[in-house]
């Protein structure tokens, strides 16, 4: 056991936990005032739901002994054998690794919730998201990090571009299609009710993301330090590049654009951060800002209502990040070389990994949504939608100024 590494990973775990309330605040500010609490609840309640699933069998399915490359065995169910002793191959307690990974399992399903904001039944939400975590997140996590087939194939995903962002972004797309548009979409102004709150949420996410990305080194190492730096550079550059894209195409740079760009930059650097240096990270950030910005513009044209742009930011940003890892990765930083360093194969592997996650997530998400719809119904009724989900689902109001 190395006390520096333990110190680092304890704090990294706390930082990643903090991202979930941060996301709740980020998403909460983006919806209308009458939906702020229900939107917050979508993220917040997962701190409970997924924690319990994780202990019962989630950790085991994700990181238990590999079964056919697809899923982990139940050896760690109930966290049997997962204690304060050092985990094999690492310098930190097994329980700490498990806690760190738990925080990832919490925030991934939370990301999806932006797609169906302002219109889902809370009961349906709980059913769907529990199933999704079990049937989609745990397996894909196993594939990439738990010794599954993608890991064996050599796919690079330092902190979760494929596992987390592509996976949730794609699920968001399916959900947005299947639940349908919000009342008033295209006619009313379904605008953020509290942009300062959105920026605060983005700030918390950014802060926590240092734990997410650097912590994925699992040690207070040079690699962690580099991951931290490139995370900062990609996020900052993307904040700027999104705002500049707006400035050029719409005449004004917006604050929401800068905050959205920052998140897009964080998403894009996530898979790459242990494998690239400063200059590539700036390029990754510079590209992802306009890319996600145009993805949002496109959405408006395509007419599906991904309310908070989960597809445009996490799906598209995550995909770019996964591919960019295949382009820019350099052995010197800790992984293998990518295309630009003479190893085109890695780019292909990255594409395969992304594709696999997309196909799997699309199909399973669609099936789970259908099941949920048939059993309890996905969507609140029209009166409830006018009233807002805070009152209709939780008998509460957000503000009383």
């Amino acid at each position, binding site marked *: 056991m190395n006390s520096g590494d333990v110190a680092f990973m304890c704090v990294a775990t706390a930082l990643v936990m903090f991202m979930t309330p941060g996301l709740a605040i980020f998403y909460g500010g983006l919806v209308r005032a009458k939906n702020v609490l229900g939107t917050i609840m979508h993220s917040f309640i997962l701190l409970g739901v997924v924690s319990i699933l994780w202990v019962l069998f989630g950790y085991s399915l994700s990181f238990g002994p590999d079964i056919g490359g697809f899923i982990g065995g139940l050896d760690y169910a109930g966290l049997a054998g997962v204690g304060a002793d050092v985990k094999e191959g690492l310098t930190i307690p097994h329980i700490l690794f498990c806690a760190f990974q738990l925080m990832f399992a919490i925030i991934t399903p939370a990301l999806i919730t932006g797609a169906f904001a302002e219109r889902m039944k809370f009961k349906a939400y709980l059913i769907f998201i529990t199933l999704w975590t079990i049937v989609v997140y745990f397996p894909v996590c196993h594939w990439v990090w738990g010794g599954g087939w993608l890991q064996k194939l050599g796919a690079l995903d330092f902190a979760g571009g494929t596992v987390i962002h592509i996976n949730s972004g794609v699920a968001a797309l399916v959900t947005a299609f299947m639940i349908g548009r919000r009342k*008033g979409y295209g*006619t*009313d102004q379904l605008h953020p009710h509290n942009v300062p709150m959105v920026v605060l949420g983005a700030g918390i996410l950014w802060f926590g993301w240092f734990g997410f990305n650097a912590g994925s080194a699992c040690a207070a190492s040079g690699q962690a330090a580099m991951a931290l730096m490139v995370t900062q550079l990609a996020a900052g550059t993307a904040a700027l590049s999104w705002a500049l894209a707006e400035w050029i195409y719409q005449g004004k740079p917006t604050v929401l654009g800068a905050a959205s760009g920052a998140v897009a930059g964080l998403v894009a650097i996530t898979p790459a951060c242990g494998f690239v240096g400063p200059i590539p990270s700036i390029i990754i950030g510079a590209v992802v800002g306009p890319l996600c910005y145009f993805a949002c513009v496109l959405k408006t044209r395509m007419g599906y209502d991904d309310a908070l742009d989960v597809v445009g930011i996490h799906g598209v940003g995550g995909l770019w990040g996964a591919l960019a890892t295949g382009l820019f990765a350099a052995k010197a930083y800790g992984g293998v070389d990518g295309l630009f360093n003479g190893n085109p194969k890695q780019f292909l592997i990255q594409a395969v990994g992304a594709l696999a996650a997309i196909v799997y997530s699309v199909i399973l998400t669609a099936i789970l949504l259908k099941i949920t719809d048939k059993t309890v119904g996905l969507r609140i009724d029209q009166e409830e939608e*006018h*009233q807002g989900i805070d*009152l209709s689902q*939780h*008998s*509460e*109001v957000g503000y009383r100024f």
Partner: protein
Amino acid sequence: MKLIVAVMKPFKLDDVKEALNGLGVKGMTVTEVKGYGRQKGHKEIYRGAEYVVDFIPKVKIEVIANDDVAGQIVTAIRNAANTEKIGDGKIFVLSVEDVMRVRTGERGPDAV
């Protein structure tokens, strides 16, 4: 000249605006208000306690209009704001003695 005041459900505001535009009405003033009436308030839960909140969010619009169009305006608002559910609100008409446009100082019907 008349002052037409309508209290209605907030999500109907855009429809009403369109309807008035259709009549060539070029202005109105909108206030967020809370209404109390036959419509049942909603329940709120707060740490084990339960309350009924009687005051329901509504919007109030005020339109000054010349006498000849006032009737049409009332009808137009009614049609646009009507959901046939309780709580749709009220329209009432008052007589206005004088109107002035601040910018120009015009008075009376010209100022509307």
